[in-house]
């Protein structure tokens, strides 16, 4: 497992270095989990934390940060800090709901294809291949513009269109499980296919599914906020993409109003980084051989 190039002497310093980085499982894992939980708490308690109504005019427009408006106000005189806090909700909903939909879909398809194998597998995988050729993001754009769905429907659509790439990973894992002794044994005992898939195969791939869920959540968060950035987010909500768009279109760049432009982007980057880190550390823990390919 170890690279040949690392000398024993080098290892001790690496161990220290690792402690604070990704490969040192613990710190990375718990730190990123901590960040994710903090975001969840902010989303949950947004009404308590935010000092102002995110849509209300709460002062003079384009005010710089001060004690009442921690991050100043935007061109509509809305409190940027409050909008930032409320925006957490939209971000988490888009990410986690989208990921849930795609992971459930991938898991079901992957288990069925891998378990039955043969013709079923062939047909399913060819279908996945074909669907992967259709660019998910432009398709998502078209559908969102035509149907103007709310945030929940958007998240579901996102999960349906953008999720299929996980099928391959899950299926390949199930393929090996399906011919393993305990599955063959259970089959010999007369257990039904549904029972084996649900009770024996699913628990074995759950860690993999979990990692996939976290990476998907990160992906869909970025995509969902991207929709807001393109001006087709849910107008009834505050989301960070809409905030970035507003700031960049209405003078945030030209006037150099960093407190308007930087915080939403930074907020996305931090949660996205936490999820990526968490997924990586978790994956290393469950799967030291890195069998999961990330694209």
């Amino acid at each position, binding site marked *: 497992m170890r690279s040949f190039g690392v000398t024993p002497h080098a290892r001790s310093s690496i161990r220290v270095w690792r402690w604070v980085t990704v490969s040192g499982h613990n710190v990375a894992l718990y730190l990123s989990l901590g960040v994710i939980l903090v975001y969840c708490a902010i989303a949950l308690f947004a009404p308590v934390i935010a000092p102002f109504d995110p849509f209300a005019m709460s002062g003079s427009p384009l005010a710089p940060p001060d004690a009442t408006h921690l991050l100043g106000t935007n061109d509509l005189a809305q409190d940027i800090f409050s909008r930032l806090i409320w925006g957490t909700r939209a971000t988490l909903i888009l990410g986690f709901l989208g990921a849930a939909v795609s992971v459930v879909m991938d898991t079901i398809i992957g288990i069925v294809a891998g378990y039955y194998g043969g013709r079923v597998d062939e047909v399913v995988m060819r279908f996945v*291949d074909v669907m*992967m050729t*259709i660019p998910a993001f432009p*398709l998502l*754009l078209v559908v969102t513009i035509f149907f103007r769905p709310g945030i929940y429907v958007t998240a579901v659509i996102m999960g349906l269109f953008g999720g299929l790439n996980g099928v391959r990973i899950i299926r390949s894992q199930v393929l090996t499980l399906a011919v393993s002794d305990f599955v063959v044994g259970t089959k010999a005992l007369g257990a039904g296919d549904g029972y084996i898939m649900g009770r024996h195969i699913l628990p074995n791939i759950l860690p993999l599914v979990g990692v996939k869920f976290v990476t998907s959540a990160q992906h869909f968060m970025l*995509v969902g906020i*991207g929709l807001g950035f*393109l001006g087709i987010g849910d107008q009834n909500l505050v989301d960070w993409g809409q905030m970035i768009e507003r700031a960049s279109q209405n003078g945030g760049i030209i006037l150099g109003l960093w407190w308007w432009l930087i915080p939403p982007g930074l907020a996305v980057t931090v949660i996205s980084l936490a999820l990526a880190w968490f997924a990586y550390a978790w994956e290393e823990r469950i799967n030291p051989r890195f069998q999961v390919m990330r694209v």
Partner: protein
Amino acid sequence: MRLAYVLRRLLYSALAFGISVTIMFAILHFMPGDYITQYLEAIYTIAPPEVVEAYNHAYGLDRPLIEQYFSYLIGVLQGDWGYSLSYSRPVLDVVCEKLVWTLVLLLPATVLSAIVGIVIGAYSGWKRGSKADIALLNGMIFLRAIPSYWLALVILIIFAFYLGFFPLGGYVSLSALDTGIDPLDVMSHAALPIFTLFLFSVTGIYYLMRNSMLMTAGEDYIVTARSKGLDDPAILWRHAVRNAMLPTVTMIAFQCARMLAGSIFVETVFSWPGLGMLTYEAIEVRDFPLLQGILLIDTLFVIVANIGADMIYPFIDPRVEVGS
């Protein structure tokens, strides 16, 4: 075998394109509100029913659904992709014109990220667990976590706005009006968008290459090469990389789809007149026919990229003949 493979490949490609077209048709048909009514509302406040009916008849919207579907399908295949509302030109013309400008960004960005991604990914995977590997890995995780639109904005602000090294946007300077388009001028405009797209796409190739390298490093022939007394760099670049990069090459085609999505944001931020910014414009003015055209051309683009990767594969791996 070879012919069968090519035919199968073409069949799948056609299927993917067909599904795209079908989805487009379904969306058109099931969208809330009536297409004609919406279109006519630009002229009338409330469209008179007889006008709506006349239009429906003129466009064949009163015919059976299946007939409409096939006439739509045949139209698409004949190059009739509809008429852009905002450009007042056939969609296919607009889309093809913009595709060229997108390729000006995508091709260099793809080549650059493939080369850099493969090289540093290989090195990182080879030196697994070393400081260099961990630093690279963390750097890449960090880079991948930054949303592309945000990255583009920050790069624009730093390099174009504050440092002034590059123009703020567009594809040529105003002087092009007098002197014509100067390739050097276009390149200085393209530099930042290409760089952003490169950063956006290099992480994916790096991950794959690193993972692939981790697998390869344990193979027997690597041990053999080592026992022959070859030095480390020779084994790495002559033996390991050549094998480890194979899966990566196929994934570069998939990467193209991701790049297309990324280019929507990058082009919008840098006002680059390609497909991405066209998408943004079409969204802003709700130019439905144009959006469909964009989706179709994007699908075609990914299909072509996939076929391209398949064709390149045998050149990189002499053991593989096309289709085997």
